[in-house]
C-alpha cells in the first residue's frame, strides 16, 4: 500500500506536534535546563523537518506528474515518488486477498483479547485453520495441520520451555 510522500509527511508533522506538546508536560529536573522532555522534543523537531521535506517532495511529484501527463499524454510515466495520493497494493483489487489482509490483524487482536478466557489450544487451532483455509489448503487438511502444529507448539513451549500458555477453557484437563 503506497502513500504519497506528502501524506506521510503530513502524518509525521501532526504526530510530532502532538508528541512535542505532550513532552512539554514532563517535569524538568530542578536547576537544569534539560530533562526527560529534551530527547522527545529533539526527535519531534527532526520529524517535523523531515515531514515538511516529504510534503514538499510529494507535492512536487504530483505537479510534475500532472505536467508530464499533459505534455506527453502517455500513461506510463515512471516516477520514483508516488504521484497518486494513495496507491493500493494488488491485494486490494482482489476481494479474497483483501479479506486475508484484514484477517491477520483481526485474528491477532482476537487472540490478544480472548486468549485468557478461551485459552491457547482452542484459539490457536481456530486461527491456524482459518488462515490455512483462506490461503488455499482444503478444509480437512487445514484442520489437521492446525491441530498438529498447535500440539507441537503447546508441547514445545508449555512443557519444554515452561511458558505458561493460557489454558482457558481446557483448564480442568490441563491442570
Amino acid at each position, binding site marked *: *500500500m*503506497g*502513500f504519497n510522500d506528502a501524506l*506521510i509527511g503530513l502524518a*509525521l508533522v501532526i504526530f510530532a506536534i502532538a*508528541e512535542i506538546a*505532550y*513532552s512539554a508536560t*514532563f*517535569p524538568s*529536573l530542578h536547576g*537544569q535546563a*534539560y*530533562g*526527560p522532555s529534551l*530527547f*522527545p522534543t529533539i*526527535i519531534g523537531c*527532526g*520529524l517535523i523537518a*523531515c*515531514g515538511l*521535506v*516529504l510534503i514538499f*517532495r510529494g507535492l512536487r511529484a504530483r505537479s510534475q506528474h500532472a505536467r508530464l501527463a499533459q505534455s506527453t499524454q502517455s500513461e506510463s510515466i515512471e516516477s520514483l515518488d*508516488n504521484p497518486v495520493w494513495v496507491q493500493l*497494493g*494488488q*491485494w486490494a483489487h482482489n476481494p479474497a*486477498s483483501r479479506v*486475508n*489482509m484484514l*484477517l*491477520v*490483524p483481526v485474528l*491477532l*487482536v482476537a*487472540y*490478544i483479547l480472548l*486468549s*485468557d478466557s478461551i485459552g*491457547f489450544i482452542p484459539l*490457536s487451532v481456530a*486461527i*491456524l485453520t482459518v*488462515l*490455512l483455509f483462506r*490461503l*488455499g*489448503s482444503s478444509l480437512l487438511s487445514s484442520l489437521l*495441520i492446525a491441530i498438529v*502444529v*498447535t500440539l507441537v*507448539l503447546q508441547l514445545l*513451549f508449555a512443557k519444554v*520451555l*515452561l*511458558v*505458561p*500458555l493460557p489454558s482457558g477453557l481446557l483448564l480442568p484437563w490441563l491442570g
Partner: protein
Amino acid sequence: MLASAIFGLFVGSIPGLTATMAAALLIPFTFFMDPVPAIAAIVTTVAMAIFAGDIPGALLRIPGTPASAAYCDEAYAMTRKGKVATALGVSLVCAAIGGVFGSAILAMTAPVLAEFAIKFSSYEYFWLACLGLSCAVVVSTGSTLKGLVSLLIGLFISTIGIDITAGHPRFAFGNPEMMGGISFIPAMIGMFAISEVLRFIAAPHKQESIPQQPIKNVFRGLGGIISTYKLNVMRGGVIGAVVGILPGAGSDIAAWIAYAMSKRFSKNRDKFGSGHVEGLVDAGTANNAGLAGAWVPALVFGIPGDSITAIVIGVLYMKGMNPGPTVFMQQPELIHAVFIVFFLANLALLPLGFIAIRLSRTILLVPRHVLIPIILMFCVVGSFAINNTVFGISVMLIMGILAYLMEENGFPVAPTILGIVLGTMLEDNFMSSMIKADGQFTEFFSRPIAAVLGVLVILIWTLPLLRFLLSSIRGEKTRFTN
C-alpha cells in the same frame, strides 16, 4: 547447534524468509538457553541462512534472502547454461571461506579495539552511538531522508517508558506495561516476521517449477575456480568484513558492493550477467564475511553492525550482559566462545550446505501458504513467551504493521531497529555527560577521541549537504552560461 543449522538452512532456502527473520524466530528459544549456546544458535542459523539463500537464487532466480539478491541473476544464468552444480558449489565454498575470513577479522580486531575502548567515557559513547546511527541512515538502502525518518521513529519508540534521569514515565498513558518500555524482542519479531507474513498475504507467490537438472559433483572443478579468482575471494572477504563493521550495513549491502567492485575491476566485464562465475565468488564471499564483521562493533561497543546483531544485543541484554569492552575483561571466556562458534559454524557450513544442496528440490517444494500461518502462530507464542503477557503480542502486531507500511513506501527498516536499540544508550550517555559537564556542550569535544568522533559525525552529516549545495550552485552556473 545442529538443530539451529538445519533450521537456518531451511529458512534461508525458502524464498521470502530472510536470515533476520530466522534469527527473530529463534529468540524465544535463546531466551531459555545460556548465553554461549544462545549465541551459537544464532550464529549458526544465520550463517546457514545466508548461504542457503543462494539455492533458490540459482534454481529459481528468487533470492532466498536479500543478501543473495546481488548475484541471483548471475547464478540463474549459470543454471540455464547447465552449470547449476558449479554455481551452487562456488557459492557454498565461497560462503565458507568468507565466513572463516570474517571470523578471523573479528577475532583479531575485536580484542584490540576493546582494549582501546575500555578508556572510553560517556562522551565517547555518546559520539559512537551518534556515529552508528548516522552510518545507519547514510548507508541504508533507499533515500537518506526516508532513512532519517525511519531512524527518528526508532528513537521515538526507545523513549517510551520510564525516563532514566528523572524517572518520569513518558508516552505510557498510565499503562503499567508501557512504562516498562517497548521490549524489543516482540518489536523485532513483528518488524521482521509479521511484516513478511503480511507481505506474503498481500502478494501470494505461486509455487515455482524447479528446473529438472541433475545437481551432481558440486565440488568438481572448484579448486581451479577458486585459485583463478583468489584475489576476488580476498577482496570479497575484505569488503564484506568492512561493510559489516559499519553500523546499519549488513551482508546484503556487502554483497551488492562486492559484486559491483568485481564487475568494475574484472577483465571480462562484458561476461557479467551471462552466467560468469567471477561476481559470484566476490559477492558470495562478501555476504558471509559481513556477518562476522557486524559483530565487531556489537561486541566491542554494544553498537550493532546490522539488524541481526541488533537482535543479538537484545538477547544479551535480556541475559543481563551488557556488550562492551568490559565483557572482554570480565568474561573473556565468553568472547573466545563466540570466536570459536564463528569458526565452527562456518566450517560446518561445508558438509551441511552440501546436504542442503542435494535436498534443495524437496525443500523448495514445501508449500509456503502452509508455512505462513504456522510462522504467524509461532510469532504469537514467541512474543508471549518473553514476558508471559499478551502485551508482547500487541507490540508485535503494531510493529509488524508499521514495518510493512514503511517498506511498502520505501522507508528502510534497519535504521528503526538501530534507533530502538541505541536510543537508550544515546540518551543515557548524553544525559550523564551533560550532568558531568554541567551543561557545557563544548565539553563533548574536550577529550581527544571524543573530539575526533564528534567531528566525524558532523562531517558525515555536512558532507552530503555541502556536495548538494555545490552541485546546485554549479547547476545554476551552467544555466547562466547557457
